[in-house]
Structure formats: C-alpha cells, structure tokens
C-alpha cells in the first residue's frame, strides 16, 4: 500500500513536472505583470508546500510529545527539513519575481518578513536536530509548534496589514488555462513533497536504529 502510494506519487511528480513548462507558457498572459507572472506557478506552490511541511512537523511534534513514540519524531524531523527546503524555494523565487515586478528584490513588508522569520525558525530546528544530541528532540518539537503558530499570521498578513504582496484572492480568481497550470503545479509539488518526506523519514529511521545499536555496543564494551 505504502509502496503503491509512493509509485503513484513518483509518476504524478514526473509527469507533472515534465508537462508543467508547457502548461505554464501556454497559460494566458497576465496583462499587468506580463511574462514575469509565470514565476507564480512555481512560487505559490512552494509557499503552500512550506506551510504543509510546517503543519506536518508541528502536528507530529505534538503527537510525539504526548506519546513519546519515535516514529512521529522521524516524520517531524523529515518535515522540518522540507520546511527549510521549500522555504528556500519560496525566498529565492519571490525576490527574483519582486525585482521583475516591483523593481526591488526585497521589501520589509509583513508577509515577506514573517516568511523569513518562519524559515529561520526551521533552520534553527534543523540545526538542533543535527547537533543537539540526545534529548534535543523535545526541544525541537517545541520549536516546531511555535513555527506552526506563525503560519496563519503569514497567510492573513495581507489582510491585517497594508502590504506590497498580492492578496490571497489571486488563486480563487484564477480562470481557464491559468487555473489548470496552477493546480497541476500544486499536485506535482505535493507528490514531490510526499516522496521527499518518505525518503527522509526512511533515512532518519535507519540512522536512529543504527545509533541505538551503536550506543548499546559501546556500553557493552
């Protein structure tokens, strides 16, 4: 069942990412932003995947803290690394688009600043997992829960504050070819997320088992 799901995700990701450039460039041209609007089809799905990664990390961290079951910690660790990855995609494609559309790589408006904050929180999470040693899992879980609380603020930042960033009404108002390109991109990104998470969790699990055996062997000696 798990293997079948991963195979399906791999197929969807491969087909989606191969088909996507054609869909993106065949999509209608947005009048105001012109050709640089095409970055939207990679930038926004990356943002959503970061949010998904943060929520998965946060929720599994909550479950880990309550059950102390290592399998939830493995998933949280994988999702935390993916939050850093998709955050990097978001924070590189965004400024490039910003330079094209606004003439500036970066503006310190609410959404961009909070997105950068969220990314640094999860860089801290990843460093803690790597170098924190035994017992750092619980501290990292706390960080992940804090990060998860930031996501709604980022999403609604464009409503609460006057920002330069486009509003949340862009996606619901997409029509025709633009809507199709966007949702194929989202599906491809989601499939890629599942694959990367599964691979990361598998590596993390083996590493944990190996370290457990190593510590036991060292104690026995």
């Amino acid at each position, binding site marked *: 069942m798990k293997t079948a799901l991963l195979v399906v995700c791999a197929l969807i990701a491969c087909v989606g990412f191969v088909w996507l450039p054609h869909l993106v460039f065949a999509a209608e041209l947005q009048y105001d932003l012109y*050709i640089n609007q095409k970055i939207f089809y990679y930038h926004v799905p990356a943002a959503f995947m970061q949010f998904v990664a943060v929520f998965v990390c946060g929720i599994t961290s909550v479950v880990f803290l309550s059950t102390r079951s290592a399998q939830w910690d493995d998933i949280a660790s994988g999702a935390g690394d993916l939050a850093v990855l998709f955050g990097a995609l978001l924070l590189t494609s965004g400024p490039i688009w910003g330079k094209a559309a606004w003439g500036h790589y970066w503006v310190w408006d609410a959404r961009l600043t909070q997105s950068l904050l969220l990314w640094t929180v999860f860089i801290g999470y990843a460093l803690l997992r790597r170098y924190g040693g035994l017992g750092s899992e619980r501290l990292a879980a706390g960080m992940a829960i804090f990060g998860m609380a930031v996501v709604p603020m980022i999403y609604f930042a464009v409503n609460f504050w006057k920002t330069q960033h486009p509003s949340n009404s862009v996606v619901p108002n997409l029509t025709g070819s633009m809507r199709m390109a966007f949702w194929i991109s989202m599906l491809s990104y989601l499939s890629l997320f599942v694959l990367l998470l599964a691979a990361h969790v598998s590596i993390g699990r083996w590493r944990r088992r*190996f370290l457990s055996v190593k510590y036991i062997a060292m104690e026995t000696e």
Partner: protein
Amino acid sequence: MKKTLLSVLSLLMLASPAVAQSLEMTDEQLAPYKIKRDEAGNPAEPTAAAGQRFMKALTERDAEVASVVRDAVRYEIQDEETKKFARQKNFVLIAYGVIWALLAGFALAMWLRQKNLIKQIRKFETRFADDDDDSDDDQ
C-alpha cells in the same frame, strides 16, 4: 496594447497645431476625435473610443493613409512588447533555474547522507565480524 495605441494617436492629436497646419485641419475639425469628458473633466467613454473614431473617419476619408497609420502603430506595439519580453524572460529563467538547482541540491544531500550511513553501517558490521572472529579465536 490599447494604451500604446492611445498614446500614439494622442501624440498625433496633441501635436494638432503642427498636424493641423500640415494636414490643414483646424482645432474644431479635430475636436470630435478627442476623448469626451463629463462636467468634472473625467473621461466619459473608454480611452480607446476617441482613437477608434479617428481611425474610422480616416479610413472613410483615405483607406491608404489609414492603413499606413495602423502599420506604424502595430510596429510600435510589437517593438515595445518584444523588448518587454526580452527584458522579463531572464527573470523567469533564473527563478526556475534556482528552484531546480535547490531541489537537486537537496536530493544530492539526502543521497550523500544515505551513502554515509551505509558506510558507517558497513564499518560497524566489519567491526562486529572482527570481534566475533577474535572471540572465536580466544575460545
């Protein structure tokens, strides 16, 4: 595109004194081809409507001259669009390139991590196998 058409036609109309002199048209003759405005001075019709009236009248008056004007406007628009595309496509290509480079970098990092893990496991297995051999020799 409409803005460019309007700006070219507006330039023709704004230079109306010079144009009128060369085309022998008075301000009163050009008046129908200006944008209609309400009492507050705001446009009372779409911005392209005045230009379209002008082109219709010009076509009726002299189809060849109208055709020449249309070609000039079309060239201006195409030239502007081509330059805009050339300027902006680089941003799109760089953004896509960076995204794929980051994804490839992450996949490579995971692969290296797995390779390192396998190497440590093998090293550990070898060490255990040596320990077993040593204990067998002792016996």
